[in-house]
């Protein structure tokens, strides 16, 4: 994988903080890609929990914000590549909304690197593993979400 990122599987153990990452992925590409990663026994850190939707177009910006409000340390939205959407163009519409979420995060002082939208196709199992690993590494570096502190 030539894309920039930290693809080293982070260490885990007692005393090491583990982030909570909410994944929201589409059924046809990224969920299938994640399944393929399983079939290929691609190993990645277990800090992500997936909610499956039929299309990233279904993802309301409020779902992402709800996850952050609930204390997620990171959110990953993943769908089909542009032009490959099972429903023609849901991922374009999702991407537009997700840009909006990123802008909002910046303006409320929440590091927008905690949120990412990626495009992983049904044949990109290895890419799914790399994406999750990188997301986990980035969020680990950023530390626990400040919202968790507010909530306390």
């Amino acid at each position, binding site marked *: 994988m030539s894309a920039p990122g930290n693809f080293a599987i982070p260490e*885990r153990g007692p005393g090491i903080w583990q982030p*909570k990452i*909410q994944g929201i992925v589409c*059924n*046809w*590409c990224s*969920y*299938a890609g*994640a*399944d*393929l*990663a*399983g*079939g290929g*026994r*691609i*190993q*990645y*850190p*277990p*800090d992500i*929990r*997936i*909610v*499956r*939707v*039929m*299309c990233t*177009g*279904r*993802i*309301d910006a409020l*779902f992402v914000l*709800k*996850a952050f409000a*609930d*204390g*997620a340390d990171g959110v990953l939205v993943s769908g*089909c590549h542009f*032009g*490959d959407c*099972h*429903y*023609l*163009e*849901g991922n374009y*519409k*999702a991407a537009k*909304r997700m840009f909006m979420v990123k802008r909002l995060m910046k303006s409320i002082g929440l590091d927008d690197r905690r949120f990412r939208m990626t495009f992983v*196709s*049904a*044949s*990109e199992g290895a890419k799914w*593993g790399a994406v999750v690993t990188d997301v986990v590494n980035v969020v680990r570096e950023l530390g626990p979400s400040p919202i968790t502190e507010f909530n306390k």
Partner: protein
Amino acid sequence: MAEKKATTKKTETKKDTKKVAPVKDDVKKQAPAPAAKPKAAAAPAQVGSTIKQEPRIGVFVCHCGTNIAGSMDIPAVQEYASTLPGVEYVDNYQYMCSTPGQSKIDKAIHDHKLTGIVVAACSPRLHEPTFRTATKEGGLNPFRFEMANIREQNSWVHMHDREGSTDKAKDAVRIAVAKAKLLQDLYPKTVPVEKSAMVVGAGVAGMQAALDLAAAGIKTYLVEADTSIGGRMSQLDKTFPTLDCSQCILTPKMVDVGRDQNIELYTWSEIEAVEGYIGNFDVTIRKKARGVLTPKEAAARGIVGGGCNGCGDCDAVCPVVKPNDFEVGMKPRKAIYINHPQVVPLIYTIDFNSCIKCGLCVTACGSEKRAIDLESKDEFIKVKVGTAILATGYDIFPIEKKEEWGYKKYENVITSLEFERLICASGPTGGHLVRPSDGQTPKKVAFVLCAGSRDNTGTGKPYCSRFCCMYSLKHAHQIIEKIPGCVPYLFYMDIRSFGKMYEEFYYRIQDEGAKFIRGRVANILEDPKTKNLHVHADDTLLDRPIDLDVDLVVLAAAIQPKADTNRTRKLFGVSCSMDGWLLEAHPKLNPCGTTTAGVFLAGVCQAPKDIPDTVASAEGAASAASIPIHKGEVELEPYFASCIEERCAGCGMCVNLCPYSALSLVEKEGRKVMQVTEAKCKGCGTCGGFCPGGAIWMNHFTTPQIVAQIDAFLLGGEQ
């Protein structure tokens, strides 16, 4: 065994205590929910009375042998599940998908009056249908089932992190239970299936699929981009390992296709647009301007006894000369042409990119046939089909990109497809293999296998093109047979002779005197005087470098998806794998299906295949495509959108977002509200993801369900 028994016992005790204890907790949890979603009443009529019932969820954890149990603590997951509010029954089993596993669900629904089922096992993309059926057999609505994926997305990807995967599985169960509590009864919509099918591409795969569908009594539209049918196979001379003449075995099929009453053939045509869904695809075919009328078209214009009869008088007078693509550019054709004498349909075509409209052909055709229309335009034809098969085939990889072999730089380096035409009796040289530089018969011919295949340099293709080994063996046989004293040298990495009678064929060619050199060709240089070629390679068996002087080099070039494949697949909503081949629904168990219901794959467009495999896959695709048509109706998953009218402000933003034009604004009680046409809605939820008023209810992926899943993960952990 003992451990298992103990677990079961523990479960039962838990179960007993549960019945009394946590009910209060449930009520507390559930109480605010109805207030927060008044839409329950406004939601579609399918919302049964059971929704008001207290949720009673059954959780089943699957071991999948050691696939899951080997990487996590199943008893811990099960015990955790039993502590979750709303969970009434928990169990585990070695293989939940087995008959005893499924009957556990059936029994538990009856014994414990469950309202929802959660199975923590593999991916819902694999076994959701299985467990939905089991849920239905237990007397519940099949959509009251939710799956927690603890295999593909857990035990298999965290194989050495027992604690991490156990925690993740507990969360996955909690998230699934949260959704299961809010699941509703849903009823699939049944739609009729149009009694017709479409096949895109009329190579041997497309022809076979169309013939099978037609034989099953299904009206089939066969669309081919070229001017005639037959595809790649019609360009080949002989086929391995039987050495049948390719044209001889293919032309009867071509004639059958042309003659079949159930097949409507569109050559020189492309798919322009596809709308609709399984059972009801509306396909627009672009019939490119051909400039020549078929007898039928002529009759429609009132020209009695007119139209093209393939006489070729026009060809004789046309002054424009162009390279013939069918002969890989090695033979001239006119601006009005047919690919080869055996074409089906036997109708000439004008290449309007090179035609100068001199009108000589019109005169030659005469006043009786009046077949030529120099002003003809593209036509658009709309057809309705129930299912479609893509058989778009392949192109040769542009092997000149591998500059070290000098294709298109040295005259005597040719591709295997050019070799096929040169050795073919109907080809440009009448079957005499000659060197392009001087027309001499070669005496030493080098074959470069894996030319661009199994290439990880980034220039070529990483995959095996699968039939190059075998046709190169066949080429070696052909030159030994046709040119006395000529020696073939095959530079190979591995000879992959995997099919029926293939290995035997390999031995036969070895015995005939072909030379095999195990080594990849490093580069090829030309002697500028003789135009002979120096092939440089490492003989890895003898462990020494080779510099072989030959007369002709044949590159067994890799194959790649046909140039137009990407456009066509997007029209039909089919995905592709990383190398561009079309993606099957399942690589092993559904190789002809796609993730778009009603669209199937045949032949090489899915992956490289030789002719027997291509024909087998075409027959498979035809059989699969005929099933919905013979059934007459299909069930659509009921993931429709609907409008919660009291929340709808009638802004109409969703109407513009819908890619299927399924939404519209209607007047109701003096104000505008959105209305869904269910038959058009495919359930993507793009409208529901945007609605500023939260007025759109997406069946099975409702906002309360998704929010409950997020809350269950992030807030539920401390319970």
